[in-house]
């Protein structure tokens, strides 16, 4: 665990305004605008090739946008070369200098500044301590483990005391277990030093677990910016709903919209399900409007017996288990509904099971969810 008595540094806010970058005809970034608050742990999340690295390289100064601007602490930095920006990067491949020891790798930025030997040593020791690499000073990068290399890369990027730290998938080369541990360490480190973190990842669970806010990107566009729970519970588009976690998503048409307390009880017709379902929404949608409807698998219930007391706002479907996937703490079922559509349902195993999961392959089941647990995603214009 990253511990010690590291000092708090100053985080800057970062403003990306209408940035576009094309490679030939291909738009890697298309009018991207993001505001990152000072000291925030901000994640850029998106599938491979969506332009995350391109955006990071523009902020770091390795690439220039075709249009738009990047403001750091209110000042445009686009005209500055990388070495003049108060930003440092942890590279995906770590990019450690192979000919230098751990100590010299971390000391590299200070040596360039021609800092006195005593002050330099004190500082390097401080950062070695921060990332818990004491005792590895003399090792060359080739002799370090993946996790240790990553820490050298972080210490080296932090020793300049940048106001913004950019991290380009720093954990992607590590195995799952180590990744989890280092992610927690990274989070601690962030809390400790107070620098703005911009963290690039294509792993949604990574982003959800540590970020203050997340920007979800696809095809060079920012689709949604929000806190992790907002992005998970209220996805702005079909893509976000599908990319973050698992979900059941259907195109639907509004049939009826009835005000109820402070929201609207909406009736949707879903062609794939050949039936109407109920869902609550804050908008009064016009009848005939095309929308997308989504319901997360873990919010649904699955039973072998038909529920006897069904309240009016419960959606209920019958089907058979097409494929049960048992994974210890939960089971995921692909349920083939009577109308031929497959629904994903996740059941948590909260109790001790003596006899294994009680729902089995090809068994007939009932799938249900309440109107409040569904969500209308993107209002698709027809």
């Amino acid at each position, binding site marked *: 665990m990253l511990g010690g008595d590291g000092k708090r540094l100053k985080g800057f806010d970062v403003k990306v305004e209408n940035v576009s970058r094309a490679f030939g005809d291909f738009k890697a970034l298309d009018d991207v605008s993001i505001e990152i608050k000072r000291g925030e742990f901000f994640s850029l999340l998106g599938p491979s090739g969506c332009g995350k690295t391109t955006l990071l390289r523009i902020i770091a100064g*390795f690439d220039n946008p075709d249009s738009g601007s990047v403001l750091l602490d209110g000042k445009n930095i686009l005209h500055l070369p*990388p*070495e003049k920006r108060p930003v440092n990067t942890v*590279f995906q491949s770590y*990019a450690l200098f*192979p000919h230098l020891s751990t100590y010299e790798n971390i000391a590299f930025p200070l040596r*360039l500044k021609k800092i006195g030997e005593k002050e330099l040593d004190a500082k390097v020791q401080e950062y070695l301590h921060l990332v818990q690499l004491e005792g590895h000073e003399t090792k060359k990068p080739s*002799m370090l483990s993946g996790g240790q290399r990553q820490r050298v890369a972080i210490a080296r*990027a932090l020793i*300049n005391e940048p106001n913004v730290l950019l991290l380009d998938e720093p954990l992607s080369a590590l195995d799952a277990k180590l990744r989890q541990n280092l992610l927690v360490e990274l989070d601690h480190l962030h809390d400790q030093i107070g620098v703005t973190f911009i963290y690039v990842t294509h792993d949604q669970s990574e982003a959800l677990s540590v970020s203050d806010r997340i920007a979800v990107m696809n095809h060079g566009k920012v689709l949604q910016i929000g806190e992790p729970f907002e992005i998970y519970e209220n996805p702005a588009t079909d893509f976000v709903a599908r990319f973050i976690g698992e979900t059941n998503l259907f195109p639907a048409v509004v049939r009826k919209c009835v005000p109820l307390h402070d929201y609207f009880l909406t009736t949707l017709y879903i062609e794939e399900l050949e039936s109407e379902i109920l869902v609550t929404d804050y908008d009064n949608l016009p009848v005939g409007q095309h929308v997308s409807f989504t319901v997360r698998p873990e919010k649904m219930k699955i039973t072998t017996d038909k529920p006897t007391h069904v309240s009016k706002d419960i959606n209920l479907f019958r089907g058979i288990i097409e494929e049960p996937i048992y994974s210890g703490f939960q089971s995921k079922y692909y349920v083939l509904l009577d109308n031929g559509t497959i629904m994903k349902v996740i059941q948590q195993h909260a109790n001790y099971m003596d006899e294994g999961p009680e729902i089995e392959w090809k068994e007939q089941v009932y799938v249900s969810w309440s109107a409040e647990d569904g969500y209308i995603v993107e209002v698709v214009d027809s």
Partner: protein
Amino acid sequence: MSKKRPKLKPTTLVELPKETVGVYRPPRQQVFRDHRRFGFSNIVLVLVILFLFMPLFVVITYSFNASKGMRWTGFSLQWYYKLFFESRQLWRAFLNSFIIAITSSVVATILGSLAAIGIKWYRFKSRSYIQVISFLPMVLPEVIIGISMLIFFSAVKIPLGMFSIFVAHTTFNLPFVLLLVSARLDEFDFSIIEAARDLGATERQSLTKVVIPSIAPALLSSMLMAITMSLEDFVITFFVAGPGSTTLPLYVYSMIRYGVSPVVNALSLVLVLGIMVIALTFRRFLKTIAASS
């Protein structure tokens, strides 16, 4: 309806017999024993070593001979005395060789590594042609290179001498440097250049503090190779040497034309020892920097 998982009884723990508890017994190691001590491969090994080093041993032995011929007449250091105190011309030739080896290897290393960097990092039209053509001198017979150099020098009116030898040696060393440095660049991680810039280095600093040091092992080993190849070259030098530019191999050749002088034997031992000292020191040095890449 469906089969249930059988209910598992809790497993009872078996108590281990007392004496095995806590005693670690290493697994019995299998020892491979060679029954035929002098197997075929050993014989071949000995023969090859003999074949390779016998001439050297003979030369070294006779360098301590008291008389000239092949008859052993007693131990003496007279040839060493002659070598060190009465062979001014030989040392002159040695100096020539040394100067040419150092200058041509340094220039070949600089040009070759710049060429390798250019070919690897920049895309241009004739890239692949240059790559192929630059390896030609490596496969061409030395005689042909020597003759063509000679023709070239006389065509452009460069007088034959130290300079022409230097040019020739630089030329035939270039492809080797190019090859070695390219191989190193193949595994070069470009992001370390960006990392250097990111951490505050200017473009110049990232070249001198990061790129060059991290390919230093390749630069050093290609320079060492260039030095040895230049020192030992006879054929090409033979064609392009002029008056007053005799190198050591040329001089030794001229000495033994009239029968082997035992001074050459003495020189052999001195050279072998000198090269061994250099090679061992550099091997140490190379090993430490090789560990870094």
